[in-house]
């Protein structure tokens, strides 16, 4: 179950970051493409945390 969850998260992130970072199919993985993929995953996680905090604060204000 946990493994299925992990795999489906990796599928979703690869989907998003592939579209953002891989604009051209090269004969081998380019260093700059790899850096973009790493940053993309990190920023996507940052964005999730930011939005979770912001939604949490709003829920707090409503009380």
């Amino acid at each position, binding site marked *: 179950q946990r493994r299925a969850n992990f795999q489906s998260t990796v599928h979703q992130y690869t989907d998003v970051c592939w579209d953002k970072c891989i604009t051209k199919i090269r004969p081998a993985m380019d260093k700059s493409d790899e850096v973009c993929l790493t*940053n993309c995953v990190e*920023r*996507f996680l940052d*964005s*999730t945390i*930011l*939005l979770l905090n912001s939604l949490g604060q709003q829920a707090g204000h409503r009380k």
Partner: protein
Amino acid sequence: FQELLSKINTKCFAKCVTKPGTKLDSSEQTCLQRCSDRYQEAWNVVSNTYLRRAQ
């Protein structure tokens, strides 16, 4: 709620973080906050319109 968060994150990340760098800069953070607010408002407008029409 889980699904709303996931939709907001996907839509807003696509719009606000065009070139992911080594951290979220402040303009990206502002954009994400605003985008999240707008998306929730849009959700409410859609929900109200749909309910009004369904009656």
